[in-house]
């Protein structure tokens, strides 16, 4: 590899040409502070706290946006640099509510961490009194504009990663604010509630609605039978909340942790993921056989569904009518499980742990009451569960491995990979292939649908019929596929869309600090979970088989239709 020599803090160092000073410094073990910088986003260079000194250059320059050149002499630790960085931090703090102790980001606020590192001890500036009102308009997200430091990371995620673009900066000077149009609330604009903004926010300006108190209350109520379901993506990310490396598989500890919180039953969304494959797979086969609308598009991701309802209502007939695994679980917990366990539905509280903020919205959709009342009562994100466990004082490292309760805790490897982009497709193909051809799949791994590429394709021969599959994750990529469908250029039969980059493992409710690199590690872990499972095909799940035998009877049958399928609305 060709390299160039630069001098970094007095030491001559060979680095790759064309990298930024920030990258060069980090490669040399010097972690310059950043706020507006995010490895998966474009360079913005507006917070200015990564400034460094270059010999011969009049002003300090931001290291995130300045590329190295041969012979460049860079100093990152001169008194001049330190004073400037501290001053800028001080200026940000003077415009920031001094509510660190009661802030939801207390403990993982990037601004606070950097300020501590740089020894900001005193704020000479006049503290600003803010008057913005908080936005509690949605079940998913809370916006607190007072805490916004205008780094622009949320708007960047909203525009360029999701291509939704409802968050952007308005006005100028000190009046600048980042919000939906005309300062509207999130509920009044076409926000899909994916929470990618919250995931990248360095401070507490936008975050999930905290529902932990509602769960504490339910757990404390002796009249209630509280069951919990956990999404596949949570088992490979929760451990990060306790300092474990990303991609740590913590299924067993997760089950123990939930038990020690006092849940009456610890179930697994993977069970209903297997069920989703049964319903969705048969729906696909039915559409192929009977001339239904194709390509059929998956419907597991609630942010994605809301996006379709807002932006592409004319394509709604392409969506599978299947509910998401979360909602299938809720409907069954309050019917099938209630019946088999001799409980009354009104006494059961269904709690979900999801990697997703849009799931809170999904659970509160008025049509999600197949059981007679709201099917899923409370949705927690991975971060909220992390906080509950911290609150309870549970030492995650010491937890023993435990197993999910049956029957709604029994699952297959196919269900586990639902958490990764391409996973639903791969799981569906495993089942559809065997159902259609009657043959046993020799190689279960559809590697073409895996990985972080934005739009992926695969094709399977189903007894002479070629089924072409398309996979998109992140709404910007999904939009590309939708435009192809509208233009009649999508020759896919089946399309999987996940709202968030990387799929649910990169969801808006996942631990802070999520980057594409971390997403890749979580994905790897999910495929490992799959590999380790004795059963890897949804239709081989014995609990699902039993469910059909004793209760639902047939996929796409009458009861299935009532409990497990739904319809969508036009929100445009």
């Amino acid at each position, binding site marked *: 590899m060709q390299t160039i020599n630069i001098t970094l803090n007095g030491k001559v160092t060979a680095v790759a040409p064309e990298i930024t000073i920030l990258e060069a410094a980090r490669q040399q073990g010097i972690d310059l502070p950043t706020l507006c910088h995010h490895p998966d986003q474009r360079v913005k*260079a507006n917070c*200015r706290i990564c400034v460094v000194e270059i010999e011969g250059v009049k002003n300090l320059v931001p290291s995130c946006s300045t590329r190295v050149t041969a012979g460049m002499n860079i100093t990152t630790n001169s008194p001049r640099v330190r004073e*400037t960085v501290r*001053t800028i931090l001080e*200026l*940000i703090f*003077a415009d920031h509510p001094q509510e660190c102790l009661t802030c939801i980001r207390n403990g993982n606020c990037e601004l606070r961490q950097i300020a501590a590192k740089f020894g900001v001890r005193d704020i000479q500036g006049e503290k600003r009194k803010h008057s913005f009102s908080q936005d509690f308009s949605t079940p998913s997200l809370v916006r607190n504009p007072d805490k916004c430091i205008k780094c622009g990371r949320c708007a960047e995620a909203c525009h360029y990663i999701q291509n939704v673009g409802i968050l952007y900066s308005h006005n100028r000077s000190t009046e*600048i604010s980042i919000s939906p149009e005309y300062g509207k609330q999130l509920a009044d604009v076409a926000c899909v509630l994916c929470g990618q903004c919250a995931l990248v926010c360095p401070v507490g300006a936008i975050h999930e609605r905290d529902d932990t108190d509602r769960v504490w209350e339910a757990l404390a109520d002796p009249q209630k039978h509280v069951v919990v379901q956990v999404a596949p993506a949570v088992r490979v990310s929760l451990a990060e909340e306790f300092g474990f490396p990303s991609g740590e598989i913590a299924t067993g500890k997760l089950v123990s942790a939930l038990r020690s919180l006092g849940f009456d039953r610890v179930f697994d969304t993977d069970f209903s993921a297997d069920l989703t494959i049964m319903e969705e797979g048969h729906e696909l086969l039915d559409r192929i056989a009977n001339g239904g609308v194709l390509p059929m598009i998956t419907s597991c991701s609630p942010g994605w569904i809301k996006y379709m309802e807002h932006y592409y209502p004319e394509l709604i007939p392409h969506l599978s009518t299947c509910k998401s695994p979360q909602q299938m679980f809720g409907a069954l917990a309050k019917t099938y499980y209630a019946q088999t366990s001799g409980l009354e539905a009104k006494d059961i509280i269904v709690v979900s742990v999801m990697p997703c903020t849009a799931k809170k919205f999904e659970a509160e959709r008025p049509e999600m009451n197949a059981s007679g009342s709201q099917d899923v009562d409370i949705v927690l994100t991975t971060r909220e569960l992390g906080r509950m466990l911290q609150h309870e004082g549970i030492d995650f490292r010491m937890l023993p491995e435990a197993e999910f309760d049956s029957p709604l805790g029994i699952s297959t490897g196919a269900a586990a990979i639902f958490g990764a982009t391409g996973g639903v497709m791969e799981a569906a193909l495993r089942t559809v292939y065997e159902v259609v051809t009657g043959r046993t799949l020799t190689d279960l791994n559809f590697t073409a649908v895996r990985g972080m590429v934005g739009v992926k394709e695969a094709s399977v021969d189903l007894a002479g019929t070629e089924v072409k599959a398309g996979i998109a994750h992140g709404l910007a990529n999904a939009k590309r596929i939708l435009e192809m469908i509208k233009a009649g250029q999508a020759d896919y039969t089946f399309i999987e869309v996940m709202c968030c980059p990387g799929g649910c493992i990169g969801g808006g409710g996942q631990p802070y600090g999520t980057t594409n690199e971390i997403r890749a590690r979580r994905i790897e872990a999910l495929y490992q979970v799959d590999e380790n499972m004795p059963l890897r095909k949804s239709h081989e799940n014995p609990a699902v088989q039993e469910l059909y035998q004793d209760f639902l009877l047939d996929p796409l049958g009458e009861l299935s239709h009532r409990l497990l399928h739904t319809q969508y609305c036009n929100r445009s």
Partner: protein
Amino acid sequence: MNKMLDDDQIFNISPGRHVDLDHHCQNGGYSALAKALAQGPETSLKEILDAGLRGRGGAAFPTAEKIKMLRANTEKLRYIICNADEGEPGTFKDRFIMTHIPFQLLEGITIAAFMAGASEGYIYVRHEYPEAQKILHESIEEAERRGFLGDNILGSGFSLSLKLFSGAGSYLCGEETALISSIEGKKGRPRLKPPYPTQAGLWQKPTLINNVETLANIPKIIEKSASWYRSFGTPDSPGTKLISLSGDVQNRGLFEVPFGMTFAQIINEYGGGAKTGKAIKAVNIGGASGVLIPPEMLFTPLEYLACAKTGITIGSGAIFVLDDTRSILSNVQNRLRFFLHESCGKCTPCREGLRQANLILDRLLAGEAVRQDVSTLERYTRAIQEASFCGLGQAAGNSLRSSLAYYRDEYLASCRDNKPSFIEEETA
């Protein structure tokens, strides 16, 4: 001493007189364009290079070098933009050119476009200049009718489509990348450089952006040669500079001044000195983003190198004189408030630094500040200057920095804990 300019000058300044196309042509107008088209872009560019013309918008970048960068670009579609977003308080030179000698400007734009190989262009005029917009609009139409603009100019085969663009009114749109964003229909906020506009400017195409005054210099250089041009000014800073002179002087107005004159000369000979009976307390040079200097520095010549050495920014060429009845602090705050209003708000040091600096000045002027506030103000000023995103943010700290350097006593005297020395002695 440099000669005072008489009839022989680059800008035909006679207030109240609008030079129409016929007048322009009678005075040798458009002969430069014909000459440039005949001798080709390289020869013309050589003339500009030899003349040593530098940008008159504030950054003083060598004009010929900028045009060369465009010529080096392989992209066929190139733009020229005339930056007429003059918004610096106390600066009114570009408006004069646009309203009084519009064809000299149009001719300069056309020659520059020819040298740069640009076929499309914009004049970005702020909407606060409706008169300039009207005159330019009519002048562009007339130049097109007479074959000086548009398709196949003067039968040369060179074409330039020139349009007027009205900015919505933001000081920051004078910054070239913010200006480009504004024409593209986006927010007028600066972009990261590189790429520079010469590489990827308007709609990602190579773009030449020059100030009104810079472009209006070009026809005279082509017409009368680089050596004629160099008969004005100094070897380091050839030519003349339009000076917007205002404040506490006898004669306020716009003057064409050869480089090399000292600021004292300009103020005395053109401005007739300070108002009767008053002494000069400070002079602001370079507009709102310029510096505030004490009278003893007025012997610095108007010259890029000399000014750079003493920390004076020539900027747009505005000179504002303050006599001894003026408060430095309120003068600085005036300018600070202008920048606070005009900051785009994108970067922290400019947005928050200016806000805090303004609050400290509020306290100082109210007699509520303490000495500590002055050093905090100095520190904030350094951050604004050192770390702002764009040149305008960086320059916003200039009058703060210079006033804190030269008039620190006045700042300290306003502090509540500033006790006269005899009291200190008593307590000691």
